[in-house]
């Protein structure tokens, strides 16, 4: 951990002194589209197209956005399950962007992933003991008191019975399987846990259990989370800071309170207005923003601001200039020319000709 100075934008209200655990700069992942026998590249799916953020030790960063906005790709990039096309990823001050698998292996211990599909993420042919013990075997770690004892301790930690050691994944429910996935991710005491939609495949009642378990484990083990989800309530419940993604870009990055109370990006505002309100009286009072049209194709994203095609505030400048992600308030970064709840950056601009 050598680099402590803030680069570019001012970020964060809390723990500014602490060096970031993870620092991502200009991260890009383009999936090439090839054609013909010679695999000529004719285009690229710009899944992640230049994102910057930091994760500080001990915090939970929530990443939210629509399907296909690049959240999961981002998660796979920072765990280095996928190779970035551009940009840098620094973990504890060390550049891991293009480390070969051999040099990456020690880092794997500190960065773990919890997967979305509790049915696909556990090998059906291995026992629970084998699955949770795999990280030890792969990293050559001999836990104190033996492997079996440690695995059983981990099972207890996530609320499963140690007797489940010799059972197989198919004998468990989705929520229990997700706990097994969590136990496996925590086996080597990682510093950073990336959870890709950890509860979206679960029943709502089970979601609460798993979310609270992750919360408790964070307190207990001092974990840092990056939680990717599309469910705003889950994100609100777990996150300290939230990044909103749209079409491969972060459009807003703020701490939970200021994001939910005073969203600045029109897209965030629209997203928040879509959260179901359980009270029918209040439901009629609030104004819902209905976004028109579909998310544009990431193969050929709109010029300038990517949200302008669906934005009710879009003007000429939105089509020509891409808004940079800047801090309009301390700890509240937004990429918009006409932010809500803040002075307009381009007030005198001509209204856009096409909405």
């Amino acid at each position, binding site marked *: 951990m050598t680099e402590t100075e803030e680069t570019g934008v001012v970020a964060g209200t809390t723990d500014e002194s602490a060096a970031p655990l993870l620092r991502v700069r200009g991260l890009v992942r383009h999936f090439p589209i090839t054609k013909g026998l010679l695999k000529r590249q004719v285009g690229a799916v710009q899944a992640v197209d230049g994102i910057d953020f930091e994760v500080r030790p001990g915090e939970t960063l929530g990443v939210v956005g629509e399907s296909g906005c690049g959240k999961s790709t981002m998660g796979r990039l920072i765990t280095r399950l996928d190779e970035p096309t551009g940009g840098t990823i620094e973990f504890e001050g060390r550049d891991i962007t293009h480390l070969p698998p051999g040099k990456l292996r020690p880092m794997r211990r500190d960065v773990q*992933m919890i*997967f979305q599909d509790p049915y696909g993420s556990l090998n059906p042919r291995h026992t629970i003991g084998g699955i949770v013990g795999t990280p030890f075997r792969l990293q050559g770690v001999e836990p104190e008191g033996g492997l079996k004892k440690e695995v059983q301790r981990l099972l207890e930690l996530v609320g499963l019975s140690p007797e489940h050691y010799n059972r197989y994944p198919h004998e468990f429910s989705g929520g229990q399987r997700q706990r097994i996935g969590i136990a496996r991710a925590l086996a080597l005491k990682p510093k950073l846990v990336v959870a890709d939609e950890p509860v979206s495949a679960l029943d709502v*009642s089970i979601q609460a259990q798993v979310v609270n378990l992750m919360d408790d484990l964070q307190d207990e083990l001092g974990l840092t989370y990056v939680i990717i989800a599309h469910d705003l309530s889950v994100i609100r419940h777990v996150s300290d800071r939230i990044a909103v993604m749209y079409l491969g870009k972060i459009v807003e990055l703020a701490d939970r309170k200021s994001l939910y109370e005073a969203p600045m990006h029109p897209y965030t505002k629209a997203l928040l207005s879509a959260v179901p309100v359980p009270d029918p009286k209040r439901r009629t009072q609030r104004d819902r923003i209905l976004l028109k049209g579909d998310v544009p194709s990431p193969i050929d994203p709109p010029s300038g601001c990517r949200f302008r095609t669906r934005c009710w505030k879009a003007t000429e400048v939105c089509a020509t200039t891409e808004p940079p992600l800047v801090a309009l308030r301390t700890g509240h970064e937004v990429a918009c020319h006409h932010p809500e709840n803040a002075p307009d950056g381009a007030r005198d601009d001509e209204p856009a000709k096409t909405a």
Partner: protein
Amino acid sequence: MGRRRRPRGVKGTVTAPIETTGAAAEAQPEAVLQGVEGKKIVGRSLGQIAWLRFKRDKVAVAGAIVVILLILVAALSRPIQSWLGLDPNSPNRDLIDPNTTLPSGDFGGMSWDHPLGVDPKFGRDLFARVLEGSWVSLIVAFGATLLSVAIGTVLGVVAGFYRGRVDSLISRLMDVFLAFPLLLFAIAISASLQGGAFGLEGLPLHISVLIFVIGFFNWPYMGRIVRAQTLSLREREFVDAARGMGARGPFILFRELLPNLVGPIIVYSTLLIPSNILFEAALSFLGVGIQPPQASWGGMLNQAVKYYEVDPQYMIVPGLAIFITVLAFNLLGDGLRDALDPRSR
């Protein structure tokens, strides 16, 4: 660390997270452990579950019993012959009508001494010859299947796992092998190796050539199945999980993928065995497989063709042997497929 600034539980628009009491959460595993009537539920591996499913399939179990019996008989065919005092190659000219060269008794010369009759011209005991043919048939079928499975699995897994150019290369290789005129090749190779090769001659040579020809040209079927399975398995999240823990290629191949491939490999090998038995019979029937006087089912059929109008018994006996064997293996294979992969039903 631990900067929890908010109370956990329901608040505002939070719909999902509802506080569950620790007691309820802890009680859950126990509830799963106990069955409805408080009966202890036993943990079972996928293999045990497959076995339970298989046991319920009566037809498959019957097939399995026949297959086991056949294998036992084939393995012990020589001891059985000497125990019963039979010899597949000793002629009994006294049982042959010298005018017609046909067996003199009814039903192809059936008698207590020769329960399945004798063959025309020489009067050799058909029971002994079927017995002798069984081990030849099974050894060729098993050997050839083993060879195809070995080549097919290795190349299929490699093609599916590494994809890209390796996959293209192996897939084209499979196409080449499938396009090969197998029968002509078998005839040519057997004819050219008639005298002896690789230090082998006679029966061992014929058996090796059959195993090689059948096994070496059947692997693409196995390879394609394994490749397809590998392609779908490698996209599963548990492979990502292993990679995220620092697993190397071989670990993923052998520890994560192969255990999931065992089912389909077993099933398709059991279905490959009967087709290889038929293939061996066909080659021997054409005269390029096992050479007379060695008894083999295909070779017996070949001889029987000349007599099928006057001595149908001679054709029925080896024909039935092939029929029963192939049917039993197919029933077993189908049962195994249903048991190991219930979705494919």
